[in-house]
């Protein structure tokens, strides 16, 4: 290891470099074997190159960041920020081991993915995308532009988490959780998310009975009877049925889609739907 003082070698520009490289390449090389491993290494390259002029140490650092990694890409920025801070610390005084950096990454990717899925994919995305669909359902192009808002919104809090992770280093997540605000944001996002999923599924999931019968000389649809008892009860049963199936059997999407298509065909042949 070189003896020259390397403190605060990392500038805001390097951090920004890491951010956009991760943002750009995060999903490109996703594989079953090591998920986002190449993307993580790709994002860390400029920082590692600056910190480790010595080739041997550089190669070691590259290998550290080519291990299995998988998380939600926006909130995952907090982990990248932390590992930049840790690499800097390691390059500076060499006390921190490489294993500690790998261990931190592996320990955090699961919990962070859980938080990120709730916020980015559970709340922010459905909200923006459905508002966009509502705006474009009549053929207008406004919804197309509204949908693009998803990019700046996620980039803003992704960048915030990256700089936070770097500033507070390996204690970032602990500090965040202790402040209580993360838990509150997750609670709020979950409540809003569930409420919106309810509202959206009510307007988007459709399942209607098609049969009719004669009553007092007038044609009555079976669907109107169902609506009279409780509107939307059939889509609700479909959602709850699938939810129960996922809880029990896991996310077996291929099977679910084929069963739905087959069931719809049979019910359609029988004239029920």
């Amino acid at each position, binding site marked *: 290891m070189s003896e020259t003082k390397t403190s605060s070698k990392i500038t805001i520009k390097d951090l920004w470099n890491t951010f956009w490289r991760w943002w750009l390449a995060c999903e490109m090389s996703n594989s079953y074997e090591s998920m986002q491993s190449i993307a993580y290494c790709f994002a860390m390259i400029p920082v590692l190159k600056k910190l480790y002029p010595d080739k041997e140490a550089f190669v070691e650092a590259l290998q550290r960041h080519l291990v299995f990694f998988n998380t939600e890409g926006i909130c995952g920025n907090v982990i990248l920020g932390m590992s930049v801070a840790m690499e800097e610390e390691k390059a500076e005084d060499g006390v921190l081991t490489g294993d500690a950096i790998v261990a931190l990454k592996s320990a955090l990717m699961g919990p962070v993915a859980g938080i990120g899925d709730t916020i980015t994919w559970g709340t922010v995305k459905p909200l923006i995308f459905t508002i966009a669909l509502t705006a474009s359902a009549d053929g207008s192009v406004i919804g197309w532009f509204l949908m693009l808002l*998803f*990019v700046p919104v996620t980039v803003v809090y992704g960048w915030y988490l990256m700089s936070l992770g770097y500033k507070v280093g390996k204690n970032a997540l602990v500090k965040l959780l202790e402040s209580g605000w993360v838990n509150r944001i997750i609670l709020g996002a979950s409540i809003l998310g569930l409420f919106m999923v309810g509202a959206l599924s009510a307007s988007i999931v459709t399942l209607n009975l098609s049969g009719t019968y004669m009553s007092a000389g007038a044609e009555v649809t079976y669907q109107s009877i169902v609506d009279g008892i409780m509107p939307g009860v059939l889509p609700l049963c479909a959602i709850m049925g699938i939810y129960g199936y996922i809880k029990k059997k896991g996310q077996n999407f291929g099977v679910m889609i084929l069963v739905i298509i087959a069931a719809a065909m049979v019910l359609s042949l029988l004239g029920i739907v």
Partner: protein
Amino acid sequence: MLGVALFSGIWYSIAGWRPGYSTHEIWMFPLFSALPIGLIMGDVPGAMVIGCAISMMYVGMVAPGSEMPADMSLAGLIGIPIALSIGADTGTAIAIAVPFGVLGVFLNQIRRIINAKFAHMADKHALKGDIKGINRCAMWYPLIMNLVTKFPFAFIGVYFGSAVIEKLLAILPEWILNGLSVAGGVMPAIGFAVLIGILSERKSIFPFFFLGFFLVQFFGVSSIAAACFGVPIAVIIVLMQKDSQDEIMVQVKAASKVDDDDE
């Protein structure tokens, strides 16, 4: 159809490449490809209406661990041009799109199997400290692989698909098309069910799903109106919880102060 077929092939490859996190979801969303398809085919409003109908199926969809339940990208890129060219209504457009959405899942599994090969190559490049090699594995090889594996399906699907599907629509009995269309109506339930699972880690908040569901079922409010109710509800609950926690803290502090005075 040649122009739009070329477009679909290239767009499908780029969407499969997934440039930009969170943006990758926009690349794949049928509403996004609807505008360029509409411009190429000279019917923007028609393309937007069909794009919206197809997008509805996939709006609640999340990809846990990046495993996609259905390929909305291929469904839109083949479904919109074909439905537009044969003048199909939204129900028929959904029936056309559903099978392609299922087919695309396998293409994406192939993508992630081949990507593992690039991961091994990156390991070797890392040993030599070859940054350019890692860059290629991170970006350019996946792009080439996507162009090779994805372009043909979308191109052929659009270029030859519309004639085939027009004939099929004439031959197929009504119940098959109706069945596909009904399945298209139920499919979003998968995405929403996955979302419910992610969001209801805390069981006590599960009823908020029903609150939103019946608000729309009984009163037919728009999603923006629902959000106008949902945001304050979430804020109230979070702040009330914070207040009660603060109150407890105040009481605890007061109690400990009394103890101090006694001493």
